[in-house]
């Protein structure tokens, strides 16, 4: 491989935790002798001030542009090295760490020399990966246009207020121009909040008066496209005119949930037995009713005990309102005794003063609504009691609601029936925490009171404002390890968009027909499973590419002994478990060689194939426990890819078990060790793949096949989609599909081998000669060859009446 970089390797003694256990002298010598490595040094502690000084000096004097530190956990230490070495110009991606302590020194009884040998292989692999790195440029992100707050939820106002407080322009899209109306209708989404209306009004006035807020009245949201900094938002015109299009820099969705009544099984009739919203309506239109009012907090019985708090707070505030205005109204709150009364000491006193009764009932028995009475069981003496009522007020049923669901769909939020709209669960980087809020605020996210909805609005705004302010000063840059699309390769098939779980991939509008994609770097979480899935390798995870991973595996595979295991561990599962095994000094089979990968889903099948091609006899992929994947579906996608490789191994006549997917919980290293040991032993029993010419030819075919667009296409179709809820994906007729896939794979496998053969030998073959050379049956072979001729992949000529096949000139 072309040495296009200057690589320095720094071996850390880590006090006595590496040095005596690993023969660092020997290791250093090995590395110095290697053409890939330009500089080697041994240090007592690479990570401490003295060590860092030394590294900095070396980088500057020797002009190193890649650095490998052979020390401990990359997960823990990499950031420090990046920060400390930033001054030398080395950037994220140019520094890598081999966990010599935790993966080699502490975990086996090998001799120091043997450990040095193991360390050498791992370090060399990592160096090769760095060598294959083509550092990306920093992409600056600008904000073109104001912030748009759409969805019409009440959080619109707090968000707009916060933005204008920070002097950031915003457009708010609301259904009505009159905030009086909004307050009037507020109780439909947030009942029992009267005490808050004055403040609400103040906020709205504030927003009204702000020069930074522009209010538009539009119809339904019809489409959103573009990326952070430059979105195109299209609404239908309320008057039926041409659609209205806005260019905005950021989008905040404010969506309120919906209140429904409890239906007849709680006796709801809309007149005497009503729910909170209806009660509020009554207070608006008729004022406070006289007589016996009973609030029944029936959320437990309605199957949502978690909403009892909201309901009882609302009941309390309505009860107060009633008692303060009408002495002739008796108010009782009937609540499940399992529920803590949500009143502070002061409120209890006030409640007593106002004469509001709080009556608990035995939650084990469901109260029954009868004409003029509710019967309930007294939790103290377990006698049935009757409570008279003139009006019975039930808790509301809470849901997302039609409009909100529509908007959510346009915004690309996957809405699961019966759930609320919590978007984007990924929490890979801390800055992603709360990003959900930066995108969506209001009780459509999850049931909450008015106050919380407004808080979310403010939070969303300030999260957005942080970005905008950075952008304004030109300090907003895209993360380095995110996906990019090579527009020249992208045919716009949309597979990536379909499987993307972070919503980072957007179509580029304006192109006819198939629309090429591009990536919003501010949303992309760098999971990279999309890149590993692209049939045309049009997507790359920059600074962390598939070719880098291929470089690593091929280098390591060449070095591995026959019974040694190549393995990938994801930073959140396998690798973390291995690190923790190292910390605890747990011993396991030293024939295990693990390479680090951000998410197991980053592994393109071609990386797996490459391993076998270059000499690995087995491959163990260790990810997170199912449903714990930080990139949502990386693990599931790998499951499908492993299946593909298994099929191909089978076609090559190798044991399918040579590749395996495993899971590890970082908090359970013992489990991890069982996984490793059993796989290593299994492979030892299998023995190595004989590297004769036939096998090598088949492996070349295997490698070619996984890079075949058609195969990758079909594979892509099996990958789990965000709306599929069960590991490893629950597409219909999975079995039939798998059979079809088997068919496709075998066809393309043989075709690839034919192509390889003709290319390598550069001579014409007759069918039976081909069959011989590839040990394939003539019949199926003939079909494939005919197709290839048809597709123009190879040529056919007749020589003395016999058909000969060859590469086309």
């Amino acid at each position, binding site marked *: 491989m072309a040495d296009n970089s200057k690589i320095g390797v720094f071996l850390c003694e880590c006090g006595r935790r590496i040095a005596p256990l690993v023969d660092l002298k020997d290791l250093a010598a090995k590395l110095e002798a290697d053409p890939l490595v330009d500089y080697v040094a041994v240090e007592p502690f690479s*990570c401490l001030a*003295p060590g860092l*000084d030394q590294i900095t000096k070396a980088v500057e004097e020797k002009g190193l542009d890649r650095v490998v530190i052979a020390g401990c956990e990359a997960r823990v230490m990499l950031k420090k090295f990046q920060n400390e070495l930033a001054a030398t110009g080395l950037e994220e991606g140019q520094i890598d760490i081999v966990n010599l302590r935790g993966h080699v020194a502490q975990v086996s009884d090998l001799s120091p020399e043997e450990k040095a040998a193991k360390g050498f292989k791992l370090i060399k692999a990592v160096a090769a990966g760095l060598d294959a790195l083509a550092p990306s440029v920093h992409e600056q992100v600008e904000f073109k246009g104001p912030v748009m707050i759409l969805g019409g939820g009440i959080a619109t106002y707090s968000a707009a207020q916060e933005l204008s407080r920070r002097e950031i322009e915003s457009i708010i899209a609301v259904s009505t121009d009159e905030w009086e109306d909004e307050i009037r209708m507020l109780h439909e989404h947030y009942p029992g909040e009267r005490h808050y209306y004055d403040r609400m009004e103040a906020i709205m006035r504030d927003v009204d008066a702000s020069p930074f807020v522009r209010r538009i009245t539009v119809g339904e949201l019809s489409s959103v496209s573009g990326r952070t900094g430059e979105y195109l938002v299209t609404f239908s015109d309320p008057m039926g005119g041409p659609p209205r299009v806005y260019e905005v820099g950021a989008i905040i969705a404010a969506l309120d949930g919906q209140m429904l009544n409890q239906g007849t099984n709680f006796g709801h009739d809309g007149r005497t037995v009503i729910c909170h919203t209806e009660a509020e309506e009554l207070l608006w239109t008729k004022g406070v009713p006289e007589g016996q009012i009973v609030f029944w907090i029936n959320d437990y019985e309605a199957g949502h005990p978690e909403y009892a*708090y909201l309901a009882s707070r609302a009941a309390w505030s309505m009860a107060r309102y009633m008692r303060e205005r009408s002495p002739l109204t008796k108010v009782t709150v009937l609540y499940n005794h399992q529920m803590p009364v949500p009143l502070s000491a002061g409120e209890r006193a006030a409640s007593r003063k106002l004469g509001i009764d709080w009556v608990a009932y035995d939650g084990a028995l469901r109260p029954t609504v009868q004409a003029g009475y509710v019967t309930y069981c007294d939790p103290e003496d377990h006698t049935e009691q009757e409570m008279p009522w003139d009006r019975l007020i039930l808790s509301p049923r809470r849901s997302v609601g039609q409009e909100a669901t529509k908007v959510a769909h346009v915004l690309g939020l996957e809405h699961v029936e019966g759930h609320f709209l919590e978007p984007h669960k990924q929490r890979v980087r*801390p800055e*992603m925490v709360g990003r959900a809020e930066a995108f969506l605020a209001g009780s459509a996210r999850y049931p*909450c009171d008015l106050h919380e909805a407004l808080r979310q609005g403010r939070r969303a705004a300030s999260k957005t404002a942080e970005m905008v302010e950075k952008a304004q000063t030109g300090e907003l840059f895209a993360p380095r390890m995110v996906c990019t699309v090579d527009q020249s390769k992208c045919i716009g098939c949309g597979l990536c968009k379909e499987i993307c779980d972070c919503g980072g991939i957007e179509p580029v509008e304006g192109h006819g027909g198939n629309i090429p994609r591009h990536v919003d770097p501010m949303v992309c979480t760098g999971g990279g499973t999309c890149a590993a899935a692209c049939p045309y390798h049009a997507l790359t995870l920059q600074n962390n590419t598939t070719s880098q991973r291929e470089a690593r595996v091929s280098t390591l595979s060449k070095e591995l002994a026959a019974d040694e295991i190549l393995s990938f561990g994801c*930073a*959140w599962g396998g690798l973390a478990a291995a690190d923790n095994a190292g910390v605890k000094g747990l011993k396991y089979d030293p024939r295990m060689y693990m390479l680090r990968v951000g998410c197991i889903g980053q592994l393109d099948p071609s990386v797996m194939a490459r391993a076998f091609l270059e000499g690995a006899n087995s491959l163990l992929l260790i990810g997170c426990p199912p449903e714990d994947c930080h990139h949502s579906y990386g693990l599931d996608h790998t499951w499908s890819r492993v299946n593909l490789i298994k099929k191909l191994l089978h076609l090559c006549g190798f044991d399918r078990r040579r590749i395996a997917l495993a899971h590890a919980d970082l*908090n359970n290293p013992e489990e991890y060790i069982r996984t490793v040991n059993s796989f290593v032993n299994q492979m030892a029993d299998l023995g190595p793949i004989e590297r004769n010419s036939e096998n090598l030819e088949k492996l070349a075919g295997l490698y070619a096949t996984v890079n075949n667009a058609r195969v990758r296409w079909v594979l892509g179709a099996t990958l789990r989609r965000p709306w599929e809820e069960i590991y490893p994906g629950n597409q219909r007729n999975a079995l039939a599909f798998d059979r079809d896939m088997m068919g496709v794979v075998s066809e393309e496998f043989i075709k690839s081998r034919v192509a390889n053969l003709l290319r390598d030998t550069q001579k014409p073959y007759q069918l039976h000669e081909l069959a011989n050379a590839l040990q394939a049956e003539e019949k199926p072979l003939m079909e494939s060859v005919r197709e290839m001729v048809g597709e123009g992949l190879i040529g056919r000529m007749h020589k003395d009446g016999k058909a000969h096949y060859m590469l086309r000139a």
Partner: protein
Amino acid sequence: MLNLTIDGKKVQAEAGWTLLDTARQHHIEIPTLCYHEAVEPFGACRLCVVELRQGDNSRLVASCVYPAEEGLEVHTMSEKVKNVRRWILEMLLSECPASEAVREMAAEYGVDSTRFEVRNPEEECILCGLCVRACAQVVGANAISTVGRGAQKEIGSPYLIPGEACVACGTCVTVCPTGAMRARFDRVRGVPEVVMAKAGK
């Protein structure tokens, strides 16, 4: 270039190095518990104390934070130093008896039993705060913190339930010197039940 002596050995250091940096650079071992290379030194466990002598007067300082100075006379294994370490380790034995690491370190100083009453035989946490600092300084998530103070202090996420801030990266588990974080980790990580926490409390 600064010149000082550690345990009688003449050593050199650069400005900005701590005594611990300097000692380790010269292969002189000093025990630590609350120290980890990935985070800022904290100076809490006091196991890394060393004696500074200047004529007759001497004092103990935490080597992980004390800067190397010209002409210092440092002793890492004096009786005073050992007395402090022994007592701390003996008290740790009674405070968190379940911790392997503590027992081993104590044994090195000839402490294999404790005269004090053991409150919780299961306890492993020594409250070094490494998990907290790693979460803040390495991960940047600030998902956990110390809760309470003094003898009542413990480690956890707000209200000791899984919080939004945790990215479940396990860095805290990896840096924990006693393995105590393993037990706590599952009370910190995981998607918080937002609805319960926020709406139902």
